[in-house]
């Protein structure tokens, strides 16, 4: 055979392989953008307008924020760069399942002001609850009810206060702005009818937001750890009452650090895995 033809065929095969690789690459990219869009889409839905509709149950306290802000992710977080260095001819990995057949809602803390929750509700549980509404079933909406359960054993009725977030159909997770550091929260997912009837589908675990400032508690307890790792409590506090000045100095730059985040993730220089 002519050498030129062989070369042509070879190049053609090469092109086909290249195109195939690009297809795989695009597939992964579009899968990611699907997830990305979904979450951004979700964040969009929970916009400020929505949040402002939230009304407080029980007697509202002045300190409780009246209009939780929606996650402001879109403008501050650029789209991830989808450049890749090498096409990995990975064997096909099956997609993760949509669910596990559970009926549960899980609550997580993100920071002093925000919680994250995800859930999975069984169809039959939904239908059972909807059936109890009779003719109102079609107008029932899925909502999250966020309870402040700080320092109580929550029985469903004794929360300090609560608010309700309407969830668009299809959402499976949500960021909740509670705006209150150092408080405990619990979330119910359920149906709410226009006449105010709420029926629970699942109740979450309880979480506590962290403190966002210096502790008001200034009692001092001291401890000594012996070599055997036994605790010995020391009665007399040591030293002089000079901690305030140390503390103030230590605290001076703190606002900056929290704002700028002098950290591995923020620095231009980090471990090799974050290199461009």
């Amino acid at each position, binding site marked *: 055979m002519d050498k030129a033809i062989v070369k042509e065929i070879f190049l053609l095969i090469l092109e086909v392989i290249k195109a195939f690789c690009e297809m795989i690459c695009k597939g992964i990219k579009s899968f990611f953008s699907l997830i990305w869009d979904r979450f951004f889409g979700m964040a969009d839905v929970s916009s400020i307008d929505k949040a402002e509709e939230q009304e407080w149950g029980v007697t509202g306290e002045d300190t409780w924020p009246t209009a939780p802000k929606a996650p402001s992710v879109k403008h501050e977080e650029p789209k991830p760069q989808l450049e890749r260095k090498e096409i990995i001819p990975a064997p096909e990995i099956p997609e993760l399942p949509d669910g596990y057949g559970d009926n549960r809602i899980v609550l997580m803390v993100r920071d002093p002001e925000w919680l994250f929750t995800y859930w999975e509700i069984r169809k039959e549980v939904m239908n059972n609850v909807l059936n109890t509404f009779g003719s109102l079933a079609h107008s029932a909406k899925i909502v999250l009810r966020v309870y402040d359960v700080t320092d109580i054993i929550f029985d469903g009725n004794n929360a300090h206060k609560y608010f309700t977030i309407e969830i668009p159909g299809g959402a499976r997770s949500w960021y909740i702005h509670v705006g209150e550091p150092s408080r405990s929260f619990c979330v119910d997912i359920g149906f709410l009818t226009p006449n105010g009837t709420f029926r629970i589908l699942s109740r979450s675990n309880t979480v506590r937001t962290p403190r966002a400032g210096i502790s008001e508690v200034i009692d001092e*307890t001291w401890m000594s750890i012996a070599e055997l790792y036994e605790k010995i409590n020391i009665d007399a506090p040591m030293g002089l009452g000079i901690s305030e000045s140390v503390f103030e100095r230590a605290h001076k730059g703190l606002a900056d650090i929290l704002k700028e985040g002098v950290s591995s993730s923020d620095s231009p220089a980090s471990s090799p895995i974050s*290199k461009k």
Partner: protein
Amino acid sequence: MEKGYLSLILHAHLPFVRHPEYAEFLEEDWLFEAITETYIPLIDVFDKLIDDGIDFRITMSLTPPLISMLTDPLLQSRYIRYSEKRINLAEKEIERTKHQPDFHRLAQMYHRHFTNARYVFSEKYHRNIVKAFKKFQDMGKLEIITCGATHGYLPLMNSNVNAMRAQVHVAVNHYEKHFGRKPRGIWLPECAYEPGVDKILREMGIRFFITETHGILFASPRPKYGHYAPIFCPSGVAVFGRDMESSKQVWSAKEGYPGDFFYREFYRDVGFDLDYDYVRPYLHGDGKRTNIGIKYYRITGKTDHKEPYSYEKAMDKAAEHAGNFMFNREKHIEYLSTVMDRKPIVVAPYDAELFGHWWFEGPDWINFLFRKIAFDQKTISLITPMEYLEMYPVNQVSTPSLSSWGYKGYHEYWLNESNDWIYRHLHKAAERMVELAKAYSRIHENSLQNRALNQAARELLLAQSSDWAFIMKTGTMLEYAMKRTKEHLFRFTKLYDDIRSNKIDAAWLSDIEDKDNIFPDIDYHVYQ
């Protein structure tokens, strides 16, 4: 006598990346780059300090995945191949640049750099550089601390205390196997703490850990000395807080030393700068241009125009910056010592890979800093957290606040729209692992079932690595992080189903045991 202490802590970590199924793999370069540019230069600095009789103290976390890779024969032999290629390219570069003195000198520098790396790696430490670090620890210069088994983000798996405990338990056992004693300290993955984590550390006999500054400052009751002295959690585990001032000087994009115009420019690499056909043999199979590790320019300024790098001038700068860092710590500690009734400790932790990999001159900066501290001043001494605890065994009791060293100081970098989808799967897998460990608590040690259960534990741990969530957020190498998360979860779920239905696929199990071979001695009962 010194008036206070500086505790330098380097967190050395890379996620477990090992792909025997491919002849070569791009992401394995993370390890090879870190060996060449960070770990070996640090070993050289420590060895030379010891040779010169200079006393020093430093603390390093060597994470279990990093130790596992550094002691893995396949990756060790691949590193030799990697370093041979670099030496070969440097030789060509010496020839190519013979009429350009500025570049020629640098080519020679890289040649020395690479040949030295090969020597230290293969001959001096017989391919196992973990032994170098162990040597420094045994000499009392270095305190090696542990980390989560796979750098799992503990507070984001808090729905399952067994899962958190397994991360610590497996890490402690792994440490003991490599260093002949239990770890005394731990670097919590991403510095992420929430009240309660310390109880798990206490169970494992860990004496101290480090939190971000506000972990201590927001602790309750209010710590009398701020973060300039450790506190004891009610569990009795000591906590040291990161000092933000010293962190900023090194880390900060704006004010940090690594941005100096005389330092080496990371982003101008021959992998991108030179003729394609010339560099092609040093690129990966797909032929895409990547960093090769020879970089000829200095940062120069905020401009695309770059001047050739001068090693001598950069060394002058590193010495100057070491002096500046020391001066600031001296002033800081002098002040603190006037308001405290004990010697303050300033804790300065950094990612180890910053030194050498990103900040090429970083290891030299440490070298200069340690020598200056030894000879040029009397205000500060280097110390490890453990030594400080031995000196001051009585400390205030206080519960640190939830915190991490990530962006904004909490969990957001690992829990946001780019990566939150992983948690429902990770939590489910952890729950199932505990279920398996309880249901199959008495299994014959050599049975197939036992192997499957142990492999399930490995797959869960690998899926939990916080690196995947981190990469999903940064957006670079995204597909790889997604692939790894899904792959380990898939393998875990298949093992779960197979164990449950008593249909273990022996051939497939052998295959993934070979691929995900981390923690050969793992015992799934840690999940009980």
